[in-house]
């Protein structure tokens, strides 16, 4: 109550701040004649005594009035007091004058909170009034003007304090200044060449040292999905890092073979990839550590070999988050430790670069402008005549002296870091080749006059060479055949096509038009060619591209026609809007087209999401981006790549690689982010994960899961062993016993082993067959791959190999439900499976609500905070009580010391750090967790991708009846409802 009254006083005080609180006549009691001497007191400090004063004043005021307004007062007080016998005119007038002045002041002065506009009624207020004073009614203009000046002064003062000089917007937007500003902003995080385009349309995130578009600001989730499945979705993947390896073929292969294993699929040495016809993809491990210590997935392209030469060139494309692990590993494997320090090269004017220079390893030119501009910035105020800073192409964050090349004296292998040197665009969708065919045009030959004279540009030099032109004609033919193909998925996966194309800005349509396929009945010859392309892909010699050569790349980058120049040339064309008739000589670009396979695993939606990657030399990014966008493609961000891989059923990097360092780093980041989000809510509004029985809503403890399932299988085996010992030993039992005797030995030899993700193709296939694969909603069982249940010995053999493994699975929900991130995959009980048989309600069982033991503990903690001795004695009891309630708590949690430690960092709604047994915490045994879950637009039901423990999965499958084999339960962390789902392992 006291507080309330205080608040009221405050409010009143604020209201009355500028009002003259009283008109005082200090001598009113005894000498009214002198009353006007001190007329008004500013009542700024209105406290209790002054209130009293006021009230007394009000009572006294009628006294004076009573002098000449007689008898009309209602309050009797005036009559009660004695009326003065006489008044002096001067004193009276002065007193009145003081009153009038106070009144006028009160009327004129606005309270501080009241803005001028607030004096206006609502219907007369206009938004533009704040900057155009003439919109105000006349009577308010003066005050508004005064206010504005005051605020301007204050603002300028503030600016002077914070910023020395505030440049005008016009000055800031001037081209040179804008470039300087942009260069400054990309010193920390690399900008892609399409950054400005993206920043206008996307939510940008800073990730892995880059500024990347996450998702478009417009609502287009479904249109983007539709583009992926029916037309074309465009993405800028230039942030992927390219590492170039050069050297003898055998030495390269010998070095690289240490990083991969044949068991996990094709390696760097796969025949078709080695010839340069196909792009390959592998999962890279640390040298010689195959099942453990994963680094991450990479794709690679070999440069097609030239005749008789064993010197090869290889590009490895990797995600930026594994580059820091991959590069040292490659260096150690290739024994490349000598960093070639880039020599300081004088600034080369573009035309001087001759295309005939050897492909020697030149230093990157990108950092130079960045450095030069830094010094320029300081001088820029003095000499404005200096040309503006150069646009940064490539990596702006790397310092000038950082080596990008490493050479080995023993093996002769050269490693070259080509990060940001090559622009990579990805087109996803069945119509992506149509978009490409419409955007790009094979480079036109240059005329005889240009051929005759030597040129600094690469293309005229190439035109002189007959064999090179023949090759170009072949490539152009193949590119033209692409138009006759209806869907991108018809081509062999991973096909590579090299090409030289004209500047696509020349054929830019004036309006955005959707590229549509035009499949017509072709002639017999073309038909034959098309068939050949579909069956065999691009012939070997056509995979060659001049993009592989550094000198050509640099030449093309340096000699790009600027947008301004191009527009000038366009304006000089006779017929407006027509094509520039002789294509300018600089307008030829070598590109590389790489086909990306679509969905390859599983039985349905095959080749969904296939597309093409377009590789360009740096600096040409926007020149190709805008023409592509003008062909009616949708543009997607990081979010869409995640959805793309989810629909394809493939693990997405780094989200779904929990065993590699980049994946671990990602998980930690994700955990802190989710935890921060969670903690931002008030405790009463949080999901209580303790009550939901969800131990790890933010980060999945894979290691603990694998260890626990290993323990469970061991116990089962021991039980069985004791049973079998009582029985007479049969043949199978002896086999079992052999297994069992060998099993503990393995466990002893490897006491500390980390969990792995199962990537062995053969084992995956076996496991997939045992799960009884079905179609996505589980309606129909696939005719192929039906494998009878394995006998126990086979399972045991399998388990000895992969006892600490988790396996990538796809789960499709049988009825309702949308799985979310970190949903639990659980083993159904037999009565849960019975729910499935009666079709009317197969919604799934419920998890009983768990008890929150930490709530009481937290209370105790609060009480015991002042008496610490009592708290320490209390904690063991509590854990005792907890232990009795939850028999599954492991020993670690029962340890009073650890529990008391954990309760110090207690977050309401979350389990403290030493987690109890994750498998047996709920009423259903946990198998694994979901790492990607959403409603799948392609399957039309909820779909989840995640990992389950191999041991757990096998024991589940073995115990289930045949018709329900592979059925599991799925529960979201925020829900108590289990949903039935079908497990599919797709290889």
């Amino acid at each position, binding site marked *: 109550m006291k507080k309330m009254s205080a608040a009221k006083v405050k409010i009143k005080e604020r209201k009355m701040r500028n009002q003259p609180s009283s008109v005082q006549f200090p001598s009113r009691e005894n000498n009214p004649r002198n009353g006007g001497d001190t007329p008004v007191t500013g009542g700024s400090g209105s406290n209790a005594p002054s209130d009293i004063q006021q009230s007394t004043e009000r009572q006294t005021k009628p006294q004076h009035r009573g002098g000449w307004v007689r008898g009309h007062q209602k309050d009797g007080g005036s009559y009660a007091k004695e009326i003065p016998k006489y008044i002096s005119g001067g004193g009276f007038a002065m007193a009145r004058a003081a009153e009038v002045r106070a009144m006028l002041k009160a009327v004129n002065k606005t309270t501080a909170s009241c803005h001028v506009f607030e004096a206006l009624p609502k219907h007369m207020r206009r938004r533009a009034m704040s900057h155009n004073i003439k919109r105000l009614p006349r009577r308010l203009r003066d005050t508004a003007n005064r206010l504005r000046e005051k605020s301007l002064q204050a603002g300028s003062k503030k600016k002077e304090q914070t910023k020395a000089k505030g440049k005008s917007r016009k000055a800031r937007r001037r081209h040179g200044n804008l470039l300087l500003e942009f260069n400054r902003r990309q010193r920390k995080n690399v900008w892609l060449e399409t950054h400005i385009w993206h920043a206008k349309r996307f939510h940008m995130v800073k990730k892995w040292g880059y500024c990347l578009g996450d998702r478009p600001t417009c609502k287009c989730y479904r249109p983007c999905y539709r583009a992926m499945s029916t037309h074309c979705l465009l993405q800028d993947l230039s942030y992927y890092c390219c590492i170039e390896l050069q050297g003898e073929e055998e030495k390269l292969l010998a070095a690289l073979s240490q990083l991969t294993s044949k068991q996990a699929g*094709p390696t760097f040495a796969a025949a078709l990839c080695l010839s340069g016809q196909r792009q390959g993809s592998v999962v890279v491990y640390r040298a010689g550590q195959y099942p453990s210590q994963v680094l991450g997935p990479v794709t690679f392209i070999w440069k097609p070999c030239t005749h008789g030469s064993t010197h090869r060139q290889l590009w490895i494309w990797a995600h930026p988050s594994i580059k820091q692990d991959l590069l040292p590993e490659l260096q150690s494997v290739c024994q490349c430790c000598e960093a070639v320090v880039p020599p300081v090269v004088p600034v080369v004017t573009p035309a001087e670069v001759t295309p005939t220079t050897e492909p020697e390893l030149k230093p990157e030119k990108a950092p130079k402008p960045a450095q030069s501009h830094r010094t320029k910035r300081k001088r820029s105020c003095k000499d404005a005549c200096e040309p503006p800073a150069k646009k940064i192409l490539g990596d702006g964050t790397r310092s000038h002296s950082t080596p990008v090349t490493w050479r080995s004296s023993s093996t002769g292998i050269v490693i070259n870091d080509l990060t940001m040197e090559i622009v990579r665009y990805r087109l996803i969708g069945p119509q992506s080749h149509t978009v490409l065919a419409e955007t790009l045009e094979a480079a036109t030959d240059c005329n005889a006059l240009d051929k005759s004279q030597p040129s600094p540009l690469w293309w005229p030099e190439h035109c002189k060479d007959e064999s090179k032109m023949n090759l170009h004609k072949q490539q152009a033919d193949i590119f033209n055949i692409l138009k006759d193909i209806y869907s991108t998925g018809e081509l062999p*996966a991973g096909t590579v096509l090299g090409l030289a194309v004209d500047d696509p800005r020349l054929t830019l349509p004036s309006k955005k038009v959707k590229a549509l396929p035009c499949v017509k009945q072709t002639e017999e010859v073309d038909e034959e060619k098309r068939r050949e392309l579909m*069956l065999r892909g691009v012939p070997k010699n056509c995979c060659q591209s001049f993009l592989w050569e550094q000198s050509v790349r640099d030449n093309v980058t340096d000699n790009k026609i600027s947008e301004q120049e191009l527009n000038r040339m366009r304006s000089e064309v006779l017929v407006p809007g027509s094509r520039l008739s002789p294509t300018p000589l600089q307008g030829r670009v070598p590109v590389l087209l790489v086909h990306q396979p679509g969905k390859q695993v599983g039985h349905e939606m095959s080749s969904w999401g296939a597309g093409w990657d377009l590789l360009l030399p740096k600096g040409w990014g926007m020149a190709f981006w805008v023409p592509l966008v003008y062909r009616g493609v949708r543009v997607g961000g990081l979010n869409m790549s995640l959805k793309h891989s989810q629909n394809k059923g493939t693990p997405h990097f780094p989200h779904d690689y929990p065993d590699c360092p980049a994946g671990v780093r990602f998980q930690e980041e994700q955990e802190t982010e989710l935890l921060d989000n969670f903690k931002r809510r008030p405790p009463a509004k949080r999901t209580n994960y303790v009550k939901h029985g969800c131990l790890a809503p933010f980060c999945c403890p894979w290691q603990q899961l694998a260890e626990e399932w290993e323990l469970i299988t061991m116990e089962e085996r021991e039980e069985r062993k004791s049973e079998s010992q009582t029985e007479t030993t049969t043949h199978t039992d002896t086999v079992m016993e052999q297994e069992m005797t060998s099993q503990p030995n393995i466990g002893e030899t490897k006491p500390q082993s980390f969990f792995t993700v199962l990537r062995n193709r053969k084992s995956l296939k076996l496991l997939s067959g045992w799960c009884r694969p079905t*179609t996505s909603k589980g309606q129909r069982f696939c005719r192929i791959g039906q494998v009878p249940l394995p006998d126990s010995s086979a399972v045991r053999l399998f388990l000895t190999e992969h006892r600490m493994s988790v396996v990538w699975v796809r789960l499709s929900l049988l009825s309702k439900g949308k799985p979310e991130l970190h949903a639990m995959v659980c083993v159904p009980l037999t009565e849960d499976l019975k729910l499935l048989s009666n079709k009317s309600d197969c919604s799934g069982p419920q998890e009983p609500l768990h008890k929150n033991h930490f709530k009481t503990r937290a209370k105790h903690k609060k009480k015991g905070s002042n008496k610490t001795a009592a708290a320490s004695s209390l904690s063991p009891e509590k854990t005792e009580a907890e232990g009795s309630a939850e028999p599954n708590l492991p020993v670690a949690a029962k340890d009073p010391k650890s529990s008391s430690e954990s309760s110090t960092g207690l977050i309401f709604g979350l389990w403290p750090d030493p987690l109890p047994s994750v498998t047996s915490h709920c009423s259903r045994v946990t198998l694994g967790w979901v790492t990607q879950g959403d409603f799948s637009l392609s399957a039309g039901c909820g779909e989840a991708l995640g990992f389950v423990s191999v041991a757990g999965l096998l024991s589940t499958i073995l115990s289930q009846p045949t018709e329900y084999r592979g059925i599991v339960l799925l529960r979201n962390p925020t829900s108590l409802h289990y949903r039935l789902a079908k497990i599919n392992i797709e290889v």
Partner: protein
Amino acid sequence: MSSIPLAAPLHADSASPAVEMDPVEYTLRKRLPRKLPKRRNDVYVNMKTDFRAQLARCQKLLEGGGHREICVHGLGLAINRAINIALQLQASSQGALQLAANTSTVELVDDLEPEDPDEAGEPMTRTRNNSAIHIKVFYPDPQ
């Protein structure tokens, strides 16, 4: 597609000679059949969608869609279903609809990927043929 034990020797391609293949060494991956531009009154029948839904779609095209004729296509296993749909349409129209069936052969492409990723094992591509049916369901002209 999962591995199929390929017991019989397969003729890999017309150009390359018949190769004896180890049954476990190759994985068979079927590519999608070649798509052709589709008109509004073309119905491609598959085995994944519910039969009733496909039938309803055809009926909608004929009655609500204002098409005088529709074309029902079926490939391989779906031939049966295509015929079934066409006959159902005819029966439900009390003889107003007529059918005209055509058969054809569609060339399909399979990829054979070597299971043992050795330098020797090259992935192969083979073509095989499958039957298809195209049934024209139409209202006969009044005369």
